[in-house]
């Protein structure tokens, strides 16, 4: 299985551990990631508030490059906002000829054409539907049955497009976690908004969103998420709110379940992982046990 990999900006900056752990886990599961050359910002959520045409063009530019450089394979976007922006192009442009034309006119400045042939996939979608639970479970090497995890899927990977999971009561992340052998924390906050960029421009309001999620997660050993913005928001303000709980990326936890050490999965790069949590992960089977691991840091 080959994918045109779209890491997005966050995974190159504050969420490097998400990029790295995604590559480790996908390689182990025989998913071949090919980099999209010269990919650029997808527009995040901010650009649509300035120009809808620009937001669509930025995302379409990346898909046009993928269609040209890596034809016939799906685009894999682990970041929820990137996934939504790219997916929006796939959903909206082919059914609106005028919009498709105006976006392609903009892309013509780079001699690019978006044709609508490429399919955009999120990591959760690929894990569930391409890899499958049987293979996901077959690699588990470490017993994590003493760990209770709150599955936090967030918003934009689920909404507004209903693609692979229920937009309000998501199941896929919890099912993958159960396959890893952990217990799933029962809660109703899996798809609740983390506040997104309100933490940057309306802090007090955003903090209420974070508080509500962190409070509901109490009792779990950690939160597992698939979005760099959710991870940052949920971790960065724990001190302010006086609520502590580690927040891991899904492939980081999968790596742990698959026997990699917490160091190798870069758990020390997350902001909120206490040493006691790390100790519970070691000693373990180390990364050296795997021959075909991706480049370390």
């Amino acid at each position, binding site marked *: 299985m080959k994918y045109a990999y779209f890491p997005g900006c966050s995974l190159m900056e504050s969420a490097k551990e998400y990029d790295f752990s995604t590559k480790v886990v996908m390689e182990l599961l025989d998913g071949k990631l090919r980099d999209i050359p010269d990919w650029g910002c997808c527009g995040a959520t901010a650009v649509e508030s300035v120009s809808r045409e620009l937001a669509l063009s930025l995302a379409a530019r990346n898909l046009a490059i993928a269609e040209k450089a890596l034809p016939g394979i799906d685009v894999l976007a682990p970041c929820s906002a990137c996934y939504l922006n790219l997916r929006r192009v796939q959903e909206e442009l082919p059914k609106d000829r005028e919009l498709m034309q105006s976006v392609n006119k903009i892309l013509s*400045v780079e001699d690019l054409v978006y044709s609508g042939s490429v399919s955009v996939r999120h990591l959760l979608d690929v894990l569930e539907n391409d890899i499958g639970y049987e293979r996901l479970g077959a690699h588990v090497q470490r017993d994590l049955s003493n760990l209770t995890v709150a599955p936090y899927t967030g918003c934009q990977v689920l909404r507004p497009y209903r693609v692979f999971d229920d937009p309000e009561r998501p199941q896929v992340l919890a099912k993958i976690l159960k396959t890893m052998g952990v217990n799933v924390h029962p809660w109703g906050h899996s798809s609740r908004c983390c506040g997104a960029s309100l933490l940057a421009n309306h802090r007090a309001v955003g903090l209420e969103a974070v508080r509500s999620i962190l409070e509901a997660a109490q009792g779990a050993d950690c939160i597992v998420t698939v979005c760099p913005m959710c991870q940052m928001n949920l971790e960065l303000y724990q001190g302010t709110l006086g609520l502590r709980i580690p927040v891991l990326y899904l492939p980081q936890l999968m790596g742990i379940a698959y026997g990699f050490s917490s160091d190798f999965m870069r758990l020390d790069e997350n902001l909120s992982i206490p040493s006691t949590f790390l100790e519970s992960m070691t000693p373990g089977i180390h990364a050296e046990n795997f021959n075909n691991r991706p480049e370390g840091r």
Partner: protein
Amino acid sequence: MHASTETLSIREAPALAKVREMVMGCMQCGTCSASCPNAFAMDYTPRQLWRLLLLGQEQEVLGSKTIYLCSSCYTCTVRCPRGLPLTEAMHALKRLAWERLPQTRSRAAFYQAFVEHIRIYGRVQESALMARYFAKSRDPRLPLSFTAAGLRLLRKGKLHVPDASHKGMLKRVVDAAMPKEGRT
């Protein structure tokens, strides 16, 4: 009937027409307000905002804090029994407010800083983006409010000097998509 309202809307708020069309089917059930995680902090709840929009109350709608408190979680959009694109309408209102109510432009500082930033760097460089946002907001308290968070990120090596390797990559697309006066 309602001829006077309609005339008023057409005369005073032609720019709103397209967005108004998006929420024309609103039956005021309030599902959006009940679903919105940020409604508690808004001056008008989403339901009230759609009503004002349908009545052509341009100043109230575009001047409201509500549109900037939407965190784009799309819960209202998936729950709306009429299937209206409500989150999209919020984004459209932000664009209109920038255009029609220059006195509220400081509220859009983050979005504007974002577009300027990617036009230069091609990809988001988080530290440089925040610096640009601070400069644009012209509020000296804003960077201070990020001190604690910034220090935590710094200690974890998560703040980076801007990397110039993709500089200018998106400039042509940004310039082609946005007329000059749309940029700042």
